[in-house]
């Protein structure tokens, strides 16, 4: 019975934690720019992240190692420095985008500009990390994040052309705006396959003391949690395709996001988007801050754990504090969160192989995984999708910058 409850909670928190500024805005841009044509990119990204999350939970349950822990041990300090530096750099931008997303939600709610909110949002996020436990963050914020289910309800209420949506599941070449099409596809992949999600998940599994008996439950949580999360992203794409695409309206400003739900719900739709954006981005802010602090602390062998008091893991607590302060500077300086999101999601996609390839080697190492090593399907899917994402990113980012999105 306890495991059934854990399973339900795991799925709910995965769903609640899936949407954030990256997945909301990239899905909205995909729907607005290309109708249902880019559904495949969300599907591909969701399948890949589901495999990665399952792998990270299995790694923790069987080997009792988190990913950074095993990476430093298996590949050595010199190699470990590469994913550490790349992850810190790219994820700091993603963290800045999420903090900007919370600020954007507060701007929409109050009319007070984002830079004014930068310090209060920083203090709120820091206080939640400093004073609460892992389960409060994982369960509390993610449960509140279920408000994002409103996107699915809204999409159904607008009666989309389901046959056309299904048609978008198969990748097709763009009819127009080719460089922008691939850039948006890459951003969607980067938003879906967020490395912080599976780093956070593996550390959570260690904090909750998973053992081999959790392997089956882990698979169910990863498949259903990420699956429902991807479904919500597709709902955002569908809404944008119905509302923005017919008028050729591009999503260039976060102020356009509330229009996703006002046709379905009227004025409450505005508040549902504000709440979804604010809560989802705050949840992602906490998860990314912790993931990066885990990455540093586990790499150096420090004491770590969100369930310890800051006094017991001072260096770990200092790490997330400094990261939050650094990422808040972007909002304080008035950097547009949507621009930051576009760049950081594309960079996430470009940098995927740096973290994913060594992780795949680990997942095939019998010294760590015993009989639970990866099968051909996990290896094939993750290798293929992360390679596709990286190659598309490396090609499309310069084209997008030169073409200015045309």
């Amino acid at each position: 019975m306890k495991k059934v409850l854990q399973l339900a909670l795991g799925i709910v928190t995965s769903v609640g934690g899936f949407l954030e500024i990256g997945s909301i805005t990239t899905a909205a841009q995909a729907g607005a720019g290309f109708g249902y044509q880019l559904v495949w990119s969300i599907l591909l990204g969701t399948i890949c992240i589901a495999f990665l999350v399952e792998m990270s939970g299995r790694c923790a349950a069987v080997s009792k190692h988190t990913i950074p822990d095993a990476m430093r041990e298996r590949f050595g300090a010199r190699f470990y420095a590469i994913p550490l530096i790349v992850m810190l750099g790219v994820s700091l931008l993603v963290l800045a985008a999420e903090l900007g997303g919370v600020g954007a939600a507060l701007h929409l709610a109050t009319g007070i500009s984002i830079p004014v909110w930068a310090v209060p949002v920083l203090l709120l996020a820091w206080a939640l990390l400093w004073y609460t436990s892992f389960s409060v963050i994982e369960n509390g914020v993610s449960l509140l994040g279920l408000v994002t289910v409103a996107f699915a309800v809204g999409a159904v209420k607008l009666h989309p052309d389901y046959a056309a949506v299904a048609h978008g599941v198969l990748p097709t070449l763009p009819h127009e705006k080719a460089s922008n099409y691939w850039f948006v596809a890459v951003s969607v992949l980067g938003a879906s396959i967020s490395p912080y999600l599976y780093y956070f998940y593996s550390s959570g599994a260690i904090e909750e003391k998973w053992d081999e008996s959790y392997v089956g439950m882990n698979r169910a949580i990863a498949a259903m949690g990420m699956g429902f999360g991807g479904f919500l992203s597709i709902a955002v794409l569908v809404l944008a395709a119905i509302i923005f695409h017919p008028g050729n309206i591009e999503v260039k400003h976060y102020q356009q996001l509330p229009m996703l739900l006002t046709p379905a719900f009227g004025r409450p739709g505005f508040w549902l988007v504000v709440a979804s954006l604010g809560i989802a981005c705050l949840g992602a802010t906490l998860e990314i801050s912790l993931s990066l602090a885990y990455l540093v602390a586990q790499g150096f062998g420090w004491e770590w754990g969100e369930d310890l008091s800051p006094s017991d893991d001072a260096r770990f607590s200092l790490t997330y504090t400094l990261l939050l302060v650094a990422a808040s500077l972007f909002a304080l300086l008035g950097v547009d969160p949507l621009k930051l999101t576009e760049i950081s999601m594309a960079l996430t996609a470009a940098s995927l192989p740096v973290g994913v390839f060594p992780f795949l080697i680990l997942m095939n190492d019998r010294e760590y995984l015993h009989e639970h090593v990866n099968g051909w399907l996990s290896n094939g899917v993750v290798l293929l999708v992360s390679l596709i994402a990286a190659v598309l990113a490396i090609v499309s980012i310069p084209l997008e910058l030169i073409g200015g999105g045309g």
Partner: protein
Amino acid sequence: MMHLFADVLDEQLHDVNGNKAGRIDGIVLELRDDKPPRLAYVEVSPITLLARFSQRLAHWFARFDRRLGPGRGAPFRIPWNRLTREDPAFKMDLDVEGTPINAFEDWLRERIVDHIPGS
């Protein structure tokens, strides 16, 4: 049988109370006349870790570290015979609190963290 690089270097270290005590950043072998080399110490220190990337960085850090007190400025060494393998880490028969491994952690705790209410 143990492979020094695969099975010792970069492994997590725990202290006698099970607290995390850093990672094994370096291995020190003793060269003996007419006998095979012997694993004498492991080192846990930012100086050793930095030296694996750049000797200059390591020298610079050691110079800075020397100013922090007596016994500082050199890597902290633990005799190999004080370590035992307890998967998934190595365990030393010392309390990390009495070593320089946690010096920065202790400094942070005493000077900053403990002054923040509710920490």
